[in-house]
């Protein structure tokens, strides 16, 4: 056990910190100052954030852990952690490219052909193609295997029919990755295929709608006899094999690049803002809760160091990711709930904390509800009987 950073890691941190400080300031100034920057989940804000994403790409910070040929730095997981920590410490904004980089890219690395990788990844890193996820449907939420959207094989492509929903930032993205039923006779998680769909495909309609906080962060995507040409995406629109969509989609959900390895930097940054809020107006009746919040964020950081140590040693992420997801999502809610406590009557005002609270509430719901995560932890980690 050695909890110190190497010199090269320290240099990496210093470089990231310097770049972020300088470029964040420049970006904000270019858009009229920090207060003029809207949420990336609004149409206006999305455009502002695109500038930021493209600047990140120019600086080769868009996807540090990727190979250099795709726009990354070939950074180790440790460096990725360092970058994320610096990113949140600097107060940089949530990534509008996140669903592509964290959810689609790991799958492309594992299942994509070299052609697909060469086409998709650099354009994703450069924020030229903006990807949203098309998994959920009106009747397939927690029960993803209930997917009904269909893709029918035709000459030179697929005909898509059906509806996706709760597609984050769908109204502003250019492409969708999603699961479609390609074998109409198969049931549940069989007969699904993982397809890549440009959203300007004729027959595809996108309707944005308001998330809990009112921002247009969600979309419904309708497919009506939409013809998806095999070459609509460079390297081909089918990711992995036909009929293997479930396996393809699930293979990387717990992977080291997957969403479940959520950066501790985000929560450490939040808890430090919380400490500042407290210091400005100490409330002894909330002091212990704040200590607890700090410890839980710190514990999440330590748990992540432990995980990354194991991954760096060749282990693969397993069902442990279930308790990880429960921990950070409930921590995020509690951090913001505590902030609202500290704000007292001002908690009612819309502001960063109130927005953050509403955002945090999605944590226990999306990417597998926490109820499902608890089932997974009990069944796959502890080995309790399924039924």
């Amino acid at each position, binding site marked *: 056990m050695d909890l110190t950073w190497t010199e090269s890691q320290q240099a990496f941190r210093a470089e990231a910190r310097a770049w972020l400080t300088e470029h964040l300031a420049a970006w904000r100034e270019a858009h009229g100052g920090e207060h003029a920057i809207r949420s990336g989940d609004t149409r206006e804000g999305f455009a502002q954030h695109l500038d930021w994403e493209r600047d990140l790409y120019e600086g080769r910070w868009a996807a540090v852990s990727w190979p250099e040929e795709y726009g990354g730095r070939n950074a180790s997981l440790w460096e990725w952690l360092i970058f994320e920590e610096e990113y949140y410490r600097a107060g940089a904004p949530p990534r509008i490219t996140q669903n592509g980089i964290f959810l689609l890219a790991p799958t492309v690395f594992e299942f994509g052909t070299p052609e697909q990788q060469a086409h998709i990844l650099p354009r994703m890193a450069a924020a030229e193609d903006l990807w949203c996820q098309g998994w959920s449907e009106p009747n397939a*939420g*927690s029960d993803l295997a*209930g997917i009904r959207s269909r893709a029918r094989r035709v000459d030179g492509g697929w005909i898509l029919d059906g509806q996706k929903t709760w597609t984050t930032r769908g109204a502003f993205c250019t492409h969708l990755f999603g699961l479609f039923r390609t074998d109409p006779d198969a049931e549940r998680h069989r007969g699904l295929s993982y397809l890549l769909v440009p959203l300007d495909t004729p027959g595809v309609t996108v309707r944005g709608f308001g*998330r*809990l906080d009112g921002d247009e962060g969600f979309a419904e995507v309708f497919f009506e006899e939409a013809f998806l040409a095999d070459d609509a995406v460079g390297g081909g629109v089918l990711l992995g094999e036909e009929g293997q969509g479930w396996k393809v989609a699930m293979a990387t959900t717990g992977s080291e690049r997957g969403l479940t390895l959520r950066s501790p930097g985000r929560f450490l940054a939040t808890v430090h803002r919380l400490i500042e809020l407290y210091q400005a107006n100490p409330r002894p009746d909330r002091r212990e809760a704040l200590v607890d919040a700090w410890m839980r964020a710190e514990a999440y950081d330590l748990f992540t160091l432990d995980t990354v140590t194991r991954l760096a040693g060749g282990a693969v992420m397993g069902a442990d990711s279930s308790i990880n997801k429960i921990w950070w999502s409930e921590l995020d809610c509690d951090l913001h709930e505590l902030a609202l406590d500290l704000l007292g009557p001002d*908690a009612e005002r819309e502001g960063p904390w109130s927005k953050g609270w509403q955002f945090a509430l*999605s944590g226990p719901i999306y990417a597998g509800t926490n109820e499902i995560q608890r089932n997974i932890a009990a069944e796959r980690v502890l080995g309790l009987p399924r039924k």
Partner: protein
Amino acid sequence: MFFGFDDDQIAFRDAVRDLLEKACPPEVVRAAWDAPAGELDRGVWDQLAEMGVLSTLVAEDAGGLGLDERSLVLVLEETGRAGLPHPIVETATVAAPLAPEVGGALVASDLGGPLVPAAADADRLLLRDPDRPALHLVEPDAVTLTPVETVDGARRAATVAWRPTPDTLITDDPAAVDLAFDRGAWGAAAQLIGLGQRMLDMTVAYVTERTQFGVPVGSFQAVKHHLADALKELAFARPAVQRAAHSLAVGAPTRARDVSMAKAMASDAAWFVGRQALQCHGAIGYTVEHDLHLYMKRTWALAKAWGDPAWHRDRVGRAIGI
């Protein structure tokens, strides 16, 4: 000892419930988010005024119903359940018994906090004297409003700038100011119980109907337990609010303690129910297109207004000697 309601009180509650179901469906709450300042629709409000609800606490010889808080508590719960966007707590619970002359006017007030709901829509403003324990009843043209964006758009909140003058004064008795605040805090507590009930009912209906994995979501034990806990918290907060009604009505020496217990428990219970309701709805509840957010955001606002739970717990603590 009788911890219940008489037939008249139940009938009054039922009449208001019927009225609100017809005149204050979710669309009316939603419309209050969007209506320009000063243009809050008064359809349901006028009907409540006509029924006498707004002057429940006003003496009969002053044109009111001459009833006390015990007759109002179930009615206020119904207004919470309906998500009524109008400031009925400020009007009927706080202003009416203090200044019966306001009649059926719509009264906004800063007694519950600096963010004044429906300030731009009000006929009168009941305002706390900035310099001493006193209350003023002020005309809209004597104040300057600054709209404030808050979590619940239907609250239509603004801050109020004004100057007290001797002729706007309606009381400078500190005890009367305290009583007015307690009435407001209690009114908010009653509404919170109703809001919690609304969210629980919506969620029970949803999880009974929604299927995933081939079965109703409500058949999963985890969902059952979330909602059983929501039911429990609400069921134990409700008597606290009803007891506070009694303490207000009879002028009990424990009034402040009982009101604070009511507000703290109702705030926490409704907040908790909201968390369970959202979680059990899942992504469907996490949009502004679904009605759940209308009631959940009102809950968040009311839980913090009129003294947040920590403030009220502190007051209870002083009352019980710690």
